[in-house]
């Protein structure tokens, strides 16, 4: 896949979305981020990083770019895709009341983009009140429901809050911005992890060579029933007569025909505390047994 990864950061007013984005811009780890925000006022750009700024674009010396999306987010995305600058990753800060799924869906629909998940930021101190607010409660709940990753800011995650969030969404819940960014940046090239790199604190990886041919619907069924704790899964699997590209983020599963013959392999990434590679090994072994069983006979 050659599309540009797109991540949406959602969450109600004051949740801490901008703080998270500032962190990303400050230390992009060698990637060129394009960040789309509602207004620059909220983005506190480090003066030492500022390369240039005009009416609706800020360039940073580390290669990142920040732009305001104005009235029409989608047209702004189109400008990026059709423009000269090709970022490594697009991050969109949704407005405080927006449904992040309605934005992120564009990355599923547009072949030049790759869906890279929705991170919903939750203000730990106020979220329980926000959820029962007579005006915005339902919309705040929906922002959490569609999340692939939940980041609780401002307070520690209490058991009570954790339980409340779990009733709304199955997405992994993170408490530290560093871990959240690590998950966001986690490389997902479908290769075996390099044993020389130091293990990360936040996430863990699992890999299989996926050297067996699948029926497409059966593969989708297996992916739907994967062990809990997998945030992202990516790779190539052979079907009877063609190559399939697999792209899983949270509840979103994409399995599409890939035109070229490439090496098969599947990599999963999840929170170290939630994803157990042993479970994945067992799951994959079981899936392989039924690989060519038609979906209707499962």
């Amino acid at each position, binding site marked *: 896949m050659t599309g540009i990864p797109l991540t949406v950061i959602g969450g*109600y*007013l004051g949740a801490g979305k901008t703080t998270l984005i500032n962190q990303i811009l400050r230390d992009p780890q060698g990637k060129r981020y394009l960040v789309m925000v*509602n*207004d*620059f*006022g*909220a983005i506190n750009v480090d003066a030492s990083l500022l390369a240039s700024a005009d*009416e609706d674009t800020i360039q940073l010396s580390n290669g990142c770019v920040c732009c*305001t*999306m*104005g*009235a*029409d987010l*989608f*047209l702004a*995305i*189109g400008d990026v*895709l*059709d423009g000269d600058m090709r970022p490594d990753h697009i991050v969109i800060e949704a*407005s*405080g*009341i927006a*449904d992040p*799924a*309605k*934005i*992120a*869906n*564009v990355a*599923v*629909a*547009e*072949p030049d983009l790759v869906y890279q998940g929705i991170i919903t930021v939750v203000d730990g101190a106020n979220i329980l009140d926000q959820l029962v607010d007579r*005006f*915005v409660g*339902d*919309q705040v709940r929906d922002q959490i429901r569609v999340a692939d990753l939940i980041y609780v800011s401002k307070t520690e995650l209490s058991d009570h809050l954790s339980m409340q969030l779990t009733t709304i969404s199955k997405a992994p819940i993170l408490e530290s911005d560093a871990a959240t960014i690590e998950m966001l940046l986690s490389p997902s090239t479908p290769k075996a992890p390099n044993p020389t790199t130091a293990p990360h604190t936040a996430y863990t990886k699992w890999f299989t060579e996926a050297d067996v041919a699948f029926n*497409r619907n059966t593969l989708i069924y297996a992916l739907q029933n994967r062990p809990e704790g997998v945030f992202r899964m990516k790779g190539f699997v052979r079907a009877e007569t063609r190559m399939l590209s697999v792209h899983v983020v949270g509840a*979103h*599963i*994409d*399995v*599409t*025909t890939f035109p070229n013959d490439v090496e098969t392999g599947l990599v999963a990434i999840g929170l170290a505390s939630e994803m157990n590679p042993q479970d994945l090994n067992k799951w994959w072994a079981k899936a392989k047994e039924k690989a060519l069983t038609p979906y209707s006979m499962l």
Partner: protein
Amino acid sequence: MQKITVFSAKKVITMDPNQPSATHVAVLGDRILAVGQADCADQWGDVIHDDSLSDFVLTPGFVEGHAHMMAGAIWDFAYAGYHDRIDPDGKLWSGKGDLNTVIGDLSDYEKTLPDDQPLVGWGLDPIFLQDERLSRKHLDQISETRPIAVMFSNFHLMCVNSKALDMVGYTNETNAEGVIKDDAGHPTGELQEMAAMFPVMRRLGIDFRSLSQTEPAIRSYAKVCQRAGVTTVTDLFSTLTDEDVTTLTSVTGEAQFPVRIVPALAAIGAAPAEIAQFALKLRSMSTDKLRLGAVKLMTDGSIQGWTARVKWPGYVGGQPNGLWNTPPELIYELVEEMQRAGVQMHIHVNGDEASDVSIDAIEAASRKHPWPEARHVLQHCQMMGVDQFKRCANMGICTNIFANHIWYFGDQHAALTIGNDRAERMDAVRAALDAGVNVAIHSDAPVTPMGPLFTAWCAVTRQTMSGRVLGAGQCISVEEALHAITLGAAYTLKLDRDIGSIETGKIADFAILAQDPTESDGIALKDIEVKGTVSSGVVHLI
């Protein structure tokens, strides 16, 4: 020396209670010098008598207080809607009552297009079509080689042909929400919401930005206005870059440009204080034909899309309450900042919960920063009750009511959205006037066609498409309706000092009509023929 021109007319309806009608109006430059009989300006010296309008009735130029500039350039696309409509150049596009007509008419249109151009249609409304749903199979009959996209009237949906699906790469493996599939799992061609439509729009070069603020878009909009007798028009929810303002200033500055444009800046994309400061800067750049400085706030969605925020008991079909586009917390913040800075607001409110919150926010802001002359305007006001109108009257808040909605969507509201009793008191112009609120009425073009006389007819008769009268208790008189489309609307734009009536000293803006709207003669208001306008003293016949 400028010459004094005295126009004679069959009748001049002035909207000035001191002289409700006259036969002549004298114009000096862009202003009205005198109103009365043939000799009305003789005190001022030599006059030239102009009888070219003597067969017609003159009224104050109509003021459309809620419309959007894309109402002009949208006609760059092929009309595919249910109702007859007339484009900016006067061409009649007949309504398409069934799918066969949609396909047939678009096929004829397709033959006129250059080979390399996609076919883009707009205005389709499946609510009114009894047939099966439009799909790629129908559009493939028009062409299998040219990409085709037909946008629905609400702009939230479109249907495309197989060629367009192929260009994006939508297949049975596509998993995007909004790419509708048939029972066999293949895309039907229907695409719902922006995320699913975007890849097609990008590849077909459909860019909504070019429908506003470009020179051709401004000129098309002016033509739409001229045909409707409108001499002052809003563009509510403008993005106004420096370049946009330069273009608008130069085009509207031409002596022959026939309409005064009042854009309201979209209050998004920056912190409230920045928006306010930008609006104030824009205000200082105003010219006679370009009145800048107001802002537009969005609050909720639409009633027919079940996205308006409505009070208990909600929607009759049990749908969940609608969606805020701006959360109440932020509405309070924006309203307070605009009130503090002295920026007039137009606030979109469809559901009665959205209007309640907006009135509360204005009340809170006015306690902190009193501004009796603010004239903030609630726009649409579709479900407001007497209680809300009285609060508006007390606080000097204006209401611009969506009267066209009664005819276009009234039956749907009674049957599907808020039920019969609340539908009968929708768009309650009578209640608003009785409460003492300043009232305007509008089309929200291109959502419904611009035509203040049609809008007035809707408010007077409250007839729906099925012919029923929806809430006779809310009907108003012809005089009241004419006031709403002239002085009433001018007041909401703070322009009643200059326009809205035919009075000495005001700008010479007239609508030229073939018949007298105050004398029924068996002719409905909506059927009165508009012959053109006089804008700032310049005659623009159609």
